[in-house]
């Protein structure tokens, strides 16, 4: 794992190791919105849930498409918005009440 001195990739998504080249390639292949880029590259779908990469991705995509960042449609946010151990759902006894 001894790294090289000066040859490093540019990482956009730290959680899933997505590089700027990966994103540029996908945009060139026609994945030109955040939803499909997420599905193609898993970018923004790691444990930080896009908190570092989505703002970067929006700027990069806007530049590539000649748009303003504010014109890029944001991806859908679904629960859980933070990663939580699956164990909590598996092992805790449901207390009833309204269905989630």
């Amino acid at each position, binding site marked *: *794992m001894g790294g090289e001195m000066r040859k490093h990739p540019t990482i956009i998504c730290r959680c899933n190791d997505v590089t700027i080249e990966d994103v540029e390639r996908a945009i060139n292949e026609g994945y030109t919105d955040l939803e499909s880029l997420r599905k193609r590259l898993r970018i923004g779908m790691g444990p930080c849930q896009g908190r570092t990469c989505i703002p970067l991705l929006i700027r990069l995509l806007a530049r590539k498409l000649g748009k303003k960042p504010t014109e890029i449609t944001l991806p859908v946010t679904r629960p859980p918005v933070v990663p939580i151990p699956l164990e909590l759902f598996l092992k805790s006894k449901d207390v009833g009440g309204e269905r989630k």
Partner: protein
Amino acid sequence: MPCTRNLLSDRRIWSHPILTFKRGRKVKFFFEGREVEAYEGESIAAALYAIGVDIFSYSIKLKRPRGAFCMIGKCSSCFMKVDGIPNTRTCIEPVREGVKVERQKGLAEIPTNGGESDVEDEEVLETDVLVIGGGPAGLSAALATAKYGLKTVIVNEHFKLGGQLLKQTHKFFGSKDLFGGLRGFQIGEELSRKVMGNPNIKVLLQTVAYGIFRGGWVGLAGKNKLYRVKPKAVIVASGASENFLTFPGNDLPGVMGAGGAQTLMNEYGILPGDEVLTVGSGNVGLIVSYQLLQAGAKVKAIVEILPEIGGWFVHAAKVRRYGIPILTRHTLKAVWGRERVEGATIVQVDEKFRPIPGTEKDIECDLVLIAVGLTPDTRLFAQAGAVMRWVPEAGGPVPLRTRYLEVSIPGMYIAGDASGIEEATTAMLEGEIAGLSVVTKLAGPKAEVIERREKLLKFLWDEYRASPLMARAKAGKESVTVSEEEMEEIRKWNPPFVSFGVR
């Protein structure tokens, strides 16, 4: 600079011109099977950084070394295996006697020894108000609702209350009413003490709100327990996360958010680096550079891509007095080093921010600070379906809200940096305003409450934000603040799928 330091070196700051760091008792724990020491009250990530551990994990696909980055539980760079549990955020996990910490290498395996876990049954919490986030905005909000007899639950992701106040070592401006003259961490401690001692407030530490569901239920997850709450009002004060940049080597340990470095240095008294290059000359970049200098580091330069310095003159003058060059029209081209930062290459840019070939310059350093702004953390609003707008001046997409800080989800309120990037004073003001709005809604309009709220609103909008220094932030907040009537209209066109409290 040597590229790796000896394990068991000590990066703790033992003498500082203005600060003394309170450290808990010594504890022993295990890193990669080896017994090491820490001080109680430190996070695992801070304790490891203090003894010279730069690499917390190797990434899942490219096996890149990853180290301390945000230090406040927002990113995933500090994930380690803690007592056998992978993907533990070690920056918000307190170090304990005997805890076993290991580096993750690649994608973590699901632990198979599931028999000994202590998961408790889910609990339904009865409360009037749920406050999400224990920083300046959330604490102020909870104190306001509790003051008027509302039962309040406050959840906080970190094991300590206070949020980013805890790393603010500068004295606040303003009147006594606004904590003027106190240092940020002192304000944080004072607010935390008041909240902890308030019989109407239940505090849940290391607990996150993971989603908002039909019928007005909110799901909370603690370390070993789930909760569900159906509050009459929710105040979300989830703060912000630091912006990042794209350049080769941007994930090497030693590339750190300016806020992350501040957490290490000001909250834990650990020097984040010896030789520093700062990227971004806004107030955060300037202030942290100055604080690094005070703590004993050498700041080699501050680079700024724009033709002028972003931060206030008073802060720029201070760092310049100490001989730190502020290089405008410069940017970071790349960072290099074997397993951590050993240096960076900067380059001059033209009017269109394009690098000018031949102007590259290498700077040896072991810390590259990224101080290029913050993005509000608004995911709970997005998930709940609140109507949002992207506002560059606010730092990203933020929900529309009334003057009283209610968003398009009835009974859901916003305060602090989540509502648009400003700073701790406005966060405290917004927190109290949101809290008083909830009081007005749930307990009926009381003259005293309305009067106090109007006074705060007037001060916030007409005095505090009237300064030209706040013009940008003010414009951002103005563009997402709507009247009550406009909000009703917005709700007609975007019917909320969930609401809180009686309407």
